[in-house]
């Protein structure tokens, strides 16, 4: 189960404000909040064409999150005041989902706090490198995780403090790419967004 938790955790890395990636990449931006739309493409060897999902995410320090998929499966991951929950639309209404993610999110809270403090390279799971000014490459420290995720590429947007995309490679022919649009940073987000389904 540890591997599952770790693996899922990496899918949450986009939450890391770019300020955390260090001044080696760009000037530090102190992030309090971020909100953006995203398009997610899942590529898999057996897929004739990728599965495309869209949604929105919002994060506000210290520990509030809304990660919402609109299509193809409407679902919402909410985190606020230490409470985590995931809902998936089933038979026309949002039903709490007991599946993957919640214990991983507990772990992530600590990680996100680190990143907000600019301590991204302290990450126990990945080694960070910076092949160019726009790219951050993360490679697993442990072989057990490397068997599940070979690498993660983060592409920076022109707007300081914002990611353009994150690509998570599971293997040579399987990856997930999330591309972010319409990002708004450091604007106060009403707490209702992190509570309401």
């Amino acid at each position, binding site marked *: *189960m540890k591997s599952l938790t770790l*693996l899922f955790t990496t899918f949450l890395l986009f939450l890391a404000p770019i300020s955390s990636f260090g001044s080696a990449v760009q000037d530090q931006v102190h992030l309090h909040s971020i909100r953006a739309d995203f398009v997610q493409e*899942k590529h898999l060897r*057996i897929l004739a*064409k990728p599965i495309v999902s869209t949604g929105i995410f919002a994060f506000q320090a210290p520990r509030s999150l809304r990660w919402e998929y609109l299509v193809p*499966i409407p679902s919402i991951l909410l985190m606020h005041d230490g409470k985590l929950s995931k809902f*998936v639309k089933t038979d026309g209404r949002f039903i709490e989902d007991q599946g993957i993610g919640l214990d991983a999110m507990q772990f992530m809270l600590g990680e996100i706090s680190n990143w907000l403090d600019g301590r991204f390279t302290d990450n126990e799971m990945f080694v960070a490198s910076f092949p160019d000014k726009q790219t951050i490459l993360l490679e697993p420290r442990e072989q057990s995780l490397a068997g599940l995720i070979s690498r993660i590429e983060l592409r920076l947007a022109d707007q300081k403090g914002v990611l353009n995309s994150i690509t*998570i490679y599971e293997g040579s022919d399987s990856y997930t790419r999330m591309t972010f649009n319409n990002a708004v940073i450091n604007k106060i987000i009403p707490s209702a967004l992190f509570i309401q389904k």
Partner: protein
Amino acid sequence: MKLHNFYLVIILSLLVACAAEKQIDLPGLNPGQQIQGRPNCAAVFPQGKWQFVHSINFTVKNGTSTTVLGVTSLTEKIINCALITVEGLTLFEAAYSKENGLEIRRAIPPFDNPRFADGLMSDIQTIFLSPTAGDVQEGQITGALAVCRHTDDSGRIIDVLPEVDDCWQIKSYSSDMTLDRSVVGQSCRKKSSTLIPEYLELNSYGQTGYTLKMTLIRADIF
């Protein structure tokens, strides 16, 4: 319920159920001469190369559930399948062919249990592949429903009902003639010569019964 326990329940539940709790017995079959035309059971099962993407909701008896994306790719020789979280994480990927059997390409614990793979492939075969083994009888069952009844060497029976409401149904009976699995398609649309359900529900009966609610996201011929 801890996550590990939850998936253990899911895995156990995906295995074919034991003794049927809700016993539904095999209905009698009126022979084929009483029906007009032969039932078009072939239209239930995709022919050629297809790829399906479904939203799959697993629900076990105590009501707990989780939802994933399911990919099923069919050719004449091989079945490929994958389970992916909404967030894009590949949980399980496998291929099955008569030539090479089951090949698990990726399985994140606890999905690395071989019995899970067997159960999953069995569900996929029930839904997408026409029963091949044994004797086939055509006729009608209760309600004047047309049926193709397949009986294999071990006495297991699979009824394929190609015209129920606006779609089709498949019912599988154990050798003691009790229903152990049913698939109910809804809102079928004809694509090529195949009836593709917009929604289908698989129920496995018994102590470790479970339900798969599958909503079609896309069906492609490739």
